């Protein structure tokens, strides 16, 4: 089943011709409208016209999250604000979020790609889509919502949280498709069990899970506990949001990336060289239809590999394998992106806290937990318990306020955390992903 059969099954030569045409027009547009791209192209002695074949894309410089941060908030927008109809943002590395803007056309494209993703996952018109991705600045909720509506399904915009109510609604409304983070789905299963609700009696058929890394083992567990077919979806707000790539239910082997809108490359994160098909490296994406904020060779920092092998589903679009990690130190905790440097910036801002810290990430039951170990310096040590506890609470609150992630602050004795010798180990990740 396809949502847009013509484009989803476009023969490779036609698909690549379309990519080249769209790439060239995107390059002309960013060179003319985005000072950042004019400056970086000029600095590299490049004009958009040097791209005459798809392979020429390799000659262009990368765009990084740092570039987006430096252009905060609207510096990389290629369309005037009068044409921007939606703004989303994801957490940045120093407390400032990464901001993206969508034109009406971008929203329409996103809705279509998300609708295609729903169909690839086995959903169809008539489904009741229980959308438990968070609604807000985060792209997950609204991205899936618009896609569900474009598909013509009934969408329940329940957003995240309040698990008991989620389970009640799933039961009473007859939800057939669930969208949320994989860890939250397992948490729901636990809650349902505690409530005496049997997932096998629910109508759920498909679960579309993303926004955090998960494994084949976890898929098995989710499929068994929730009694549905679990599909992996990929997206990032910089590129669009959810629906950049999705597994097809026919194969469940790799995620089709919608190549008529994005050009994927795999590079060696150290050297920046492009890697051959099948080799593992960092995913780089160029958007070729976006108007609000087109990005040229955006470094996602996600580690994966790419294959152009034909798929049994009939889609001609390349597949990326399940994400296996990051080429930077970003952590994904309950779907929230967290960089250790963000936590460091917060800690340094709290008077008396030393910049020596350790982040311990674990998975208790099905939910990720974050413990922030902070050394008690002479300066902040108080003889009174309540003062120290208030300090712990303050660290927890500031991290929650700035990053939106709940953590436990734990005070430890001084000099027990490893000192920075070049690159200090700041994270212990005990999750078995």
């Amino acid at each position: 089943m396809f949502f847009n059969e013509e484009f989803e099954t476009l023969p490779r030569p036609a698909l690549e011709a379309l990519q080249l045409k769209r790439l060239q027009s995107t390059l002309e547009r960013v060179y003319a409208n985005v000072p950042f791209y004019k400056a970086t192209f000029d600095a590299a002695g490049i004009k958009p016209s040097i791209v005459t074949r798809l392979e020429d894309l390799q000659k262009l410089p990368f765009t990084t999250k740092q570039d987006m941060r430096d252009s905060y908030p609207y510096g990389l927008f290629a369309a005037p604000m009068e044409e921007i109809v939606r703004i989303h943002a994801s957490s940045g590395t120093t407390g400032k979020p990464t901001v993206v803007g969508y034109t009406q056309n971008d929203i329409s494209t996103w809705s279509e790609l998300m609708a295609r993703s729903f169909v690839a996952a086995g959903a169809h018109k008539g489904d009741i889509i229980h959308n438990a991705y968070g609604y807000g600045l985060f792209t997950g909720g609204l991205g899936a919502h618009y896609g569900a509506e474009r598909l013509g399904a009934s969408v329940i915009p329940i957003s995240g949280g309040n698990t008991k109510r989620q389970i009640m609604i799933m039961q009473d409304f007859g939800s057939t498709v669930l969208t949320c983070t994989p860890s939250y789905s397992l948490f729901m299963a636990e809650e349902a069990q505690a409530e005496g609700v049997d997932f096998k009696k629910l109508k759920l058929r498909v679960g579309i899970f993303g926004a955090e890394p998960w494994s084949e083992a976890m898929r098995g567990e989710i499929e068994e506990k929730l009694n549905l077919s679990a599909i992996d979806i990929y997206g990032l707000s910089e590129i669009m949001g959810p629906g950049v790539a999705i597994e097809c239910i026919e194969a469940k082997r790799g995620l089709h990336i919608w190549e008529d809108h994005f050009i994927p490359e795999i590079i060696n994160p150290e050297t920046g060289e492009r890697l051959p098909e099948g080799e593992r490296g960092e995913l780089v994406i160029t958007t070729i239809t976006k108007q609000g904020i087109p990005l040229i060779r955006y470094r996602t920092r996600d580690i994966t590999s790419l294959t152009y092998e034909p798929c049994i589903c009939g889609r001609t679009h390349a597949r990326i394998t399940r994400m296996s990690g990051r080429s930077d130190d970003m952590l994904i905790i309950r779907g929230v992106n967290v960089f250790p440097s963000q936590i460091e910036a917060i800690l340094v801002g709290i008077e008396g806290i030393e910049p020596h810290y350790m982040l311990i990430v674990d998975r208790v039951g099905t939910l990720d937990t974050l413990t922030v170990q902070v050394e008690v310096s002479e300066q902040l040590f108080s003889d009174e318990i309540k003062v120290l506890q208030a300090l712990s609470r303050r660290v927890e609150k500031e991290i929650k306020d700035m990053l939106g992630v709940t953590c436990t602050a734990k005070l430890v004795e001084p000099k027990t955390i490893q000192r920075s010798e070049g690159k200090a180990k700041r994270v212990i990740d005990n999750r078995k992903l």
Partner: protein
Amino acid sequence: MKVEQISIFIENKSGRLAEITRVLGDAGINIRALSLADTSDFGILRLIVNDCAKANPVLKEAGFTVSKTEVVAVEVPDHPGGLSAILQALDREAINVEYMYAFVERCGGNAVIIFRFDETDKAIATLKAQNFSILDGSRLYNL
């Protein structure tokens, strides 16, 4: 009138208390009174020792976070209502007790209570005015 107390931060892991007492023992420092306040994650050990000036650097050298606090040692008459009388006197002046702990004097047989007040000087003045017996640091260290 005030007594110097040493407070030490203890992470909740095994052997920390043993380590502190070993360091003090090796340095020939005698503990006069102690109390341990604990939470699920950490504890604060509060000590009155015979040689505060020496204990502080010795503990710091061993890597502990140490702070000095001024507390007040009050002798409590050994009869029912002894402590109550003290607390009532403080309450009338709206002085708060942050924490307190007790020990028994070796010679006199009276109990001694170590108090940490929010307003130390006001507390001392109040207690003296009511003729409660406040012990000098020097007397306590050499008990």
